[in-house]
């Protein structure tokens, strides 16, 4: 998908149950001028369904980037990540974990499945907006 001016429009899938965080993510992407189509799934089960291309997610295009929370309702982020790495379609998709917890053990386990970045949700607006630029940089590389 490309924009009228020729810039590429990225498909970003956010799996995040906290809508306040989704708004901040959207704000961060806007302020970094990332051209993107942001799809949001609100729990881990939806995430698994998307990865499995089940039901209403059947045939949907594969995103360029997945922003994944760790503590999700129903199925947690680690399970979704595991399912992604096990599927042919999602095995190579770039994943950024955006978590409210930064426990080292959790971080290490996520890294085992090949994630591009582990970002602890910052308690500061400026820091939060910087995430937009980090994602932009990562997307530029793909």
């Amino acid at each position, binding site marked *: 998908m490309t924009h009228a001016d020729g810039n590429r429009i990225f498909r970003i899938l956010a799996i995040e149950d906290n809508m306040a*965080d989704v708004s*901040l993510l959207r*704000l961060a992407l806007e302020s970094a001028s990332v051209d993107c189509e942001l799809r949001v799934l609100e729990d881990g089960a939806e995430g698994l369904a998307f990865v499995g291309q089940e039901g209403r997610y059947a045939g949907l295009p594969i995103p360029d980037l997945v922003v994944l929370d760790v503590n999700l309702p129903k199925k947690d982020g680690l399970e979704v990540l595991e399912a992604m790495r096990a599927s042919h379609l999602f095995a190579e998709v770039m994943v950024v974990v955006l978590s*409210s917890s930064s426990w080292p053990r959790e971080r290490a386990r996520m890294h085992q499945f090949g994630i591009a970045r582990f970002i602890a*949700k910052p*308690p*500061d*607006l400026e820091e*939060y907006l910087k995430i937009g630029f980090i994602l932009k940089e990562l997307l530029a590389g793909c």
Partner: protein
Amino acid sequence: MHTFRNMPIKLKLMVIIMATTSAALLLSGVGIVILDSILFRSYLNLDLSALSRIIADNSTAAIAFDDPQAAVETLSALRARTHIVAACIYRKDGTTLATYARPGAGQGCRAPDARDEIRFNATDLTVSRPILLKDRLIGILAMVYDLDEIKDRRRIYGAGILGILVASNLIAFVLSSKLRTVISTPILELVHATTAVSKTRDYSVRAQKLSGDELGALVDAFNEMLAGIESRDDRLKEALLDREEALTEAQSARDSLQRSNGELARSNEDLERFAFVASHDLQDPLRMITVYSQLLVKSYPPELDNQARMFVNNIAGGTKRMRELLADLLAYTEIGSRPDTPVEVVDLNVVIENVRQILKASSDDTGAEVTAGRLPSLTGYEAHFISLFQNLIGNAIKYRSERSPRIDISVQEAPGELRFAVADNGIGIDSEYHQTIFGAFKRLHGNKIPGTGIGLAICQRVVERYGGQIWVESNVGQGATFLFTLPARLVRPEERE
């Protein structure tokens, strides 16, 4: 002999009784036969002596008149005696006057012999008697008597004795099989009792006393012994039971102690986990409040008047402070959450260097100088020691006087422990508060100096976790020295002297 030894007593008794009976009967039988043959011989002697005398006297006339016919007649009277085989009358010169032979007998008389005698030979008996007339030898009588009678008698006696033997053995068998129970039953009773005791270990079993003899005495002795064993066994059982009870009691006491210990540890653990999770999870909504109040200020500058701006700033300040409190609470509970047996070796010199880096900003701002002597390496968690020194040094900088902070860290060896001192030249602490300052969230200075009041509580928790003590020596305006001890066993062995 061996088989006899292994026979049951019943059989042994029978064999003994029958052997004794047989032996007695046989001996008496043999005695009777011997006595009989002696008596019979003497009877024969007398009888034949009398008979030969009669024959000799009756034949004197026939010899005197040399009348063989009369002599034969005299001899033929012997026919009545069937055991007389042959008889002869000889003249004085040894010639035969008359002979008698039992019908069918092949044997004749022996040569004449003038001796007056009765001689027993192997198979027969010979009689020779001089025939006298007025004390003058006129002839000789010779007789041969067979010993078949003796043989017959022996046969009859033998058969009789054998019969008696068999009959008496039969009677002995019957009698002994009845009577042996008198002996064997008490013994068997004793055997049964012994077997029962050895099999069941039931010492209350008693053998029944069936007789007043030695066996009865044996049964009494056996029962007495059993009673002794039983009472000792009972006492032993009782003692064992008592001991078991005591053990069970001790065990249940130990169990209940362990249970309450476990419960205590669990509730402690639960409490810590709760504090940990609560402080962790509470951070997230606070993060939202902080970020969104920042966003509010940022997004709506024209619409927000100064008062609204102040309100939002207060919200931001409050949430920031709460975040700090939660972070400290997290740090405090985290001290107890690590395993009890640390394996890390922590070089305290490195720890101090790390703390210097962490506090670089504030020490640069205040011109603080931190000096430290050579410090040991300890077994423990590095994060704990960083917390400890960061809080002590941080406090020293925070509660400084007008002078630039001077902080000195030293260590002294004492018996079994190391004594650390962190001395500063700050504002000092009134002795009234030397205890309370170590309580969680206890502060002396309100909001003039920022802080949550948990720093010294963390220090105390770390020190006590490793088995040490912490206290302060200070006076207002004279600086403060925080002292703490740590057990010497934390020092790596190779560093000990």
